[in-house]
Structures are given as structure tokens and as C-alpha cells.
């Protein structure tokens, strides 16, 4: 090991770490607002990358059909629960339609756009739109009626959603992996490092997204409302903040971040239908480092996970995952010692 190898490993680790950071942020975001430990976060990564791959091949991605099915299902659920609530069928149908229109619209646009071979940025935006729309639908179908359940119940639901999404991913994308072409093919040499355009894009996007999230939560009324829901759900409801809307919006953000992460790693590795799980899990480790509550903590944790993974695979590649996931034990120990005991359920 010399300086040049160490610096290459650092760069590799930080690049992966940037992706884990995004997923870690999404995990923290979802947990603070809804108390859901969102295991399927990684699935959106695979969905994003593979939807993009399908669009580039000029095919209609299977996610479009899934989107339509989920939209109809969510609309029916919305309609029924509304009708159940105030016995007014017109209201029920109205809110069902409101629920279904955006996803159906996006699905139709994608159906039309898929064979047209639009330029890469358009395809990227479409992929993000398609996958991000899954967020609110997943929340509506799987979580909304359990909003007040314990975190354990929500965790169990998450495991179920994870298996369902992996299975559907296999159905829609097949067992083989895809690698997307780079957005930027230039590369620069800095000493022993070879910095590719994709690496630059990954870092810039990650930084921009983190900054945007920060701005959103600090500067906008809606962001503040979400934070209020995170701090105290009942209090937030008393202030007129809808927890349904907060949950759905949080999932929209989380799925969108997942899709963007997918587009970012698509050109640097081969993405399979089940690739997302491990990536998401590493984001989760990063979020645990941050105690599932602090955004800067998740960022630091993610870079740490990325670098440990990179050095781990250099020294003992057979035990790479063992090293990364065993790390969670001392971290939990340290956290439980340093933060003191608390009975409060968040």
C-alpha cells in the first residue's frame, strides 16, 4: 500500500459513499417523518437505473405498467376510505381521481416517449418521474392505514414491501443486469487518480441534492411542516398539517432520491433487479451511524461506510460485506453509551 493506491481507494470509497449518503439521507428523512424504517429504499435505485436502461433501449419499461396498476389500486383504496369516512360517494370518487391522475399521466407520457429515442437528459428526467411517483403510491397502499402503528409493525411491512418490489423487479426487468452509458465521457488525470466525468457528476449531484434538502427543510413552509410532523405528529395534526400528505410527500422525496442514485451508479456498475438491496442497506448503516435522526451525521456515516468498504475489499475482498456490516455493532454500542437510555418511542 502506497500513497497512490490509498488515494485511489479513497476516491473509490468516497464515490460509493456519496451514493450511500443520498440513500442514508432518504432513510433518515422517511424515518423521522413517518417512523418507517424504509428497507425498500434501495429498490428504487435498481428501478431507476433499470427504467433508464429500458428507455435507452427504446423499450417501454415494465415499471410503467406497475405504476398504472398501483395508481388504480391506490385510487380505489382512497375512494373507499373516503367514502367510509364521510359516506359521500362523490367526495370519494373525487379524491380517488386526484390520487390516480398524476401517476397515470406520467405513465402515459412515458409510454409515448419510450420509442421516440429522446436525448439522454429527457430519458433521465422521465425515469426519475416514473420511479419517484412510486413513492406516494407505496405509502398509500402499504403504510397509510397503519400510520399510527408501532415502528416494529412498520418495519415488518417494510420487509414485505421489499420482497414484493424485488420480485416485481425481476418480473419487469428480467434476471440479467444492465449498464448505462456515462452521461459525461471525459476524464481527467490528477496524479495517480483518474477522475471520470461520472465521478464528477456523482459528487456534484450529491452535494446539490443535500444542499437542496437543507434549503427545503430550513427555508420553506412545507419543509418546516414536515419537520413539525417529525417532532410531534399529534401536535402537527392539531396545527392543520395532514399526516397523510406529509407521509406521501416524504415517500415521493425518498423514491426520487433513490431514482437519482440509480441514475448516478448506473454507468459505473452493472445494475441487477436485486442490486438495490445491498446498496440501500449500506445507506441504512450510514443512517444508523447518525442515529436515524441527523442529516449531517448520515453524510459522514456514508462516507465512512464507503471508505471502509473500499479498503476492506482491498485487504480482504472475501470478507468485505462482513467488515461493513459488523461495523454496525461497535457503532450501536457507542451510540447507546453516549446518548443515554431513553424509553421514549421517538
Amino acid at each position, binding site marked *: 500500500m502506497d500513497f497512490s*493506491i490509498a488515494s*485511489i*481507494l479513497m476516491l*473509490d470509497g468516497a*464515490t*460509493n459513499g456519496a*451514493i450511500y449518503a443520498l440513500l442514508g439521507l432518504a432513510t433518515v428523512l422517511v424515518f423521522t417523518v413517518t417512523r418507517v424504517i424504509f428497507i425498500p429504499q434501495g429498490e428504487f435505485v435498481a428501478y431507476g437505473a433499470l427504467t433508464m436502461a429500458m428507455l435507452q433501449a427504446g423499450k417501454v419499461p415494465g415499471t410503467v405498467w406497475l405504476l398504472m396498476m398501483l395508481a388504480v389500486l391506490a385510487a380505489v383504496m382512497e375512494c373507499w376510505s373516503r367514502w367510509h369516512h364521510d359516506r359521500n360517494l362523490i367526495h370519494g370518487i373525487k379524491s380517488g381521481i386526484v390520487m390516480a391522475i398524476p401517476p397515470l399521466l406520467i405513465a402515459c407520457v412515458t409510454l409515448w416517449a419510450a420509442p421516440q429515442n429522446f436525448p439522454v437528459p429527457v430519458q433521465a428526467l422521465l425515469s426519475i418521474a416514473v420511479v419517484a411517483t412510486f413513492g406516494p403510491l407505496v405509502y398509500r397502499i402499504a403504510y397509510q392505514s397503519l400510520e399510527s402503528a408501532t415502528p416494529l409493525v412498520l418495519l415488518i411491512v417494510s420487509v414485505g414491501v421489499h420482497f414484493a418490489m424485488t420480485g416485481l423487479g*425481476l418480473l419487469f426487468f*428480467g*434476471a*440479467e*443486469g*444492465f*449498464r448505462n452509458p456515462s452521461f459525461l465521457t471525459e476524464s481527467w488525470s490528477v496524479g495517480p487518480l*483518474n477522475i471520470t466525468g461520472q465521478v464528477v457528476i456523482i459528487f456534484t449531484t450529491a452535494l446539490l441534492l443535500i444542499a437542496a434538502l437543507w434549503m427545503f427543510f430550513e427555508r420553506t413552509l412545507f419543509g418546516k411542516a414536515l419537520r413539525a410532523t417529525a417532532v410531534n405528529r399529534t401536535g402537527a395534526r392539531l396545527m392543520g398539517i395532514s399526516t397523510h400528505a406529509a407521509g406521501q410527500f416524504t415517500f415521493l422525496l425518498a423514491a426520487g432520491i433513490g431514482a437519482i442514485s440509480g441514475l448516478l*451508479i448506473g454507468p*459505473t*456498475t*452493472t445494475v*441487477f433487479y*436485486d*442490486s438495490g*438491496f*445491498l*446498496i440501500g442497506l449500506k445507506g441504512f448503516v450510514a443512517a444508523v451511524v447518525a442515529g436515524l435522526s441527523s442529516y449531517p451525521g448520515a453524510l459522514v456515516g456514508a462516507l465512512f461506510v464507503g471508505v471502509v468498504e*473500499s*479498503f*476492506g*475489499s*482491498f485487504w480482504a*475482498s*472475501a470478507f*468485505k*460485506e462482513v467488515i461493513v456490516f459488523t461495523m454496525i455493532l461497535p457503532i450501536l454500542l457507542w451510540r447507546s453509551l453516549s446518548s443515554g437510555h431513553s424509553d421514549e418511542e421517538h
Partner: protein
Amino acid sequence: MNFKKTLVTLAATVACSAALADINIGVSLALTGPGSGLGIPMQNQLKLFPKTIAGEKVNLIVLDDATDPGKGSANARRFVTEDKVDVIFGSCITAVAAAMTDIASEAGTVQVAGSPVGVPAGKDKWLFRLPQSNTVMGHAVVEHMKKQGVKTIGFLGYTDAYGEQWLKEITPQLDKAGIKIVATERFARTDTSVTPQALKINAANPDAVLIVASGSGAAMPQLGMVERGYKGKIYQTHAAATQDLMRVGGKAVEGTFVVSGPAVIAEQLPDSHPSKKVSMDFVSKFEAANGPKSRNQFAGHAYDFQVTMEKVLPAALKKAKPGTPEFRAAIRDGIEGMGRTVFAHGVMNWTKDDHWGYTMETGVMLKVVDGQFAVER
């Protein structure tokens, strides 16, 4: 009334025994789940299975095991208890086939597996495998390395059973050939980067790198090596011998050596290769039914199963009646004694002690030239 009942029962018994006289073959394949990419082509090939062999009607009972070992063993249980099959074919997934093995051997029924089930010798009395063992494929790789003057290699393989088996099988062969493994690195199919492993192998600077991975997962490590500026030879195993290698790898996989069974490259085989004729037969019939370029390694295994049955069943029929334990034993003895048989996938020689069976003339070395596989002569 009673008399009528007896008549009906009698008729039913006669009908049953007539059905029993047919040859029944139980087929369990992954038609859904992660292994469906393997199982579906096999099922397509089985659609071309002859309706009769040696004048006897052959029934194929095809069940889906959904790539699930539990489902596979339930299927095997059904085959031996309800359907009383004479032969079991399947599964195409190693873990599923392994779950079926005990049930088949308990019942004394031959299992011909479409996957390399690693049951220890002695426990595989009723089990025969159709895929080439890694030893046979490794032989072709090592021979080619010797010819190319390779002295040191780096190993970059899956951190699962496939990678482990290859390393175990090829190490003694490499030792014998005087080739040293200077770096042994692992990765997983879903990894986001292999840069660290590639760095380490590059530092050891071997003459060649052997990548042990499958399908589209095989391209990522190679891209990683090329990105790190590795200029030596790169070898891939037969699990990587699909178009996916080029689809994902693009220009970076040019010049890669890939070992393969002969079936999928039938036209390109040199006339001297023993499997040329049989492979051509498989490819032309399969593609006539399923469209051009649809050929597939696993469909080839299903074809070879048919070759085996056509050779073994007529002799077994002379010894015993289908549906009896004697008939099943006769099939087993027939397979063990069928001698050198040319398959689409190579030359098979199952014996009492070797239920893997392929001879060393089986493996073919391919080279990626202009995004296509070309046979290396």
C-alpha cells in the same frame, strides 16, 4: 349393482395399468423466479421431445419449481409417490436439484440434473449431471494458458459456491502446469465497484486474470480491470459465455478468452470437434422452433437429456416393464454403461464411478472478436 361397480373398478384398473405401461418422466424446472431464464429454454427444448421411444409412449410430466428448493423437493416427492415416474429430469438450479437428490435416491429413481450438483462421490448413486464439471472446463482453460505461455495468474471470482468451486478445481491443475496464482480476490454480483480488487491484482501484475462470474455479472470485474489499465490476458468461465458479456462490457471485453461448451457455437466448431454434428442438429431444430439466435446452453442440456433417453430406454425396455423398480434400476445401469456418447455439449462417458462424465475433449476456447465469439484454434 355390485356387479356394475366391480366392472367399473376393473375397467379403471385396466386403464391404470395401461397408463402405467407408458414411460413416465418427471420434469421439474424453474419456470418462474430468478432461475426462469434457465428453465424456460429447457422447457422449449422438451416440447421437441419424441412422443414415443422404441414403440413405447413417453409422458413428460412438467412441473414448475419456481427456483425454490422446497417446491423442488415437493415436486420430486410427487413424482416418486403419485406419478411413479421412471426418470426425473431437473432441476436447472443447483440448490433445487440438490434438494431433490435425496428423495430420488431413496425411491431408487434416476435423477438427471441440468445443474452441477455437488453431491460427494458415493452419495450420487442415482444422480447424473448434464452440465460440464468445472474440472473439465478448467482443463481447457489451463491448456490454453500453457499454450499462451502464461506463468502467473490472478483470480477474481464470485464470493459464492461458483467462485469457490472453480478455485478449488483449478488450483491443482494450475500447480501441475507450473502456473502460479499470485492474487486471489473476491467480489459479489451486486457490488458497486471492484476498483480495490482490481488495484490489488494489478499490483501483483500477473500474466493473465481468470474472472469467475456468470452472465451479465461477468463484465463488471473486467471493466474494473481495464479501467485500472490492466493489459494482460483475461479469461472468463463458461457461465460468462453469453451475449450479455458483450452487451454490458462493450469494447472492454475485446480479446477476452472465454471457455465454453460446444453447443452454442455449433457452426463455428472445427470439423474435428466430435460434437460438431450433434450440436448442429440441436441448434437447427431448436432455432427452427423458437426463432433464430434463440439457442441457449440450457436448452442444449435438455437436448442431451433426450439423447441419453433415446440411447438408454430401448435397452431398459428389454429388461423390465416401465413403472417397476427393475425398470428404474435398468435405466441406471444403462446410463452407467452407455459408454462414450456424443452430446451437443461435448463427449459424455458416464461410468459407475464418475457421474459427471464429460471427457477432456469437451471444452472449447472462444475469443471475443468484434463483439462476437470466435473459436480460438
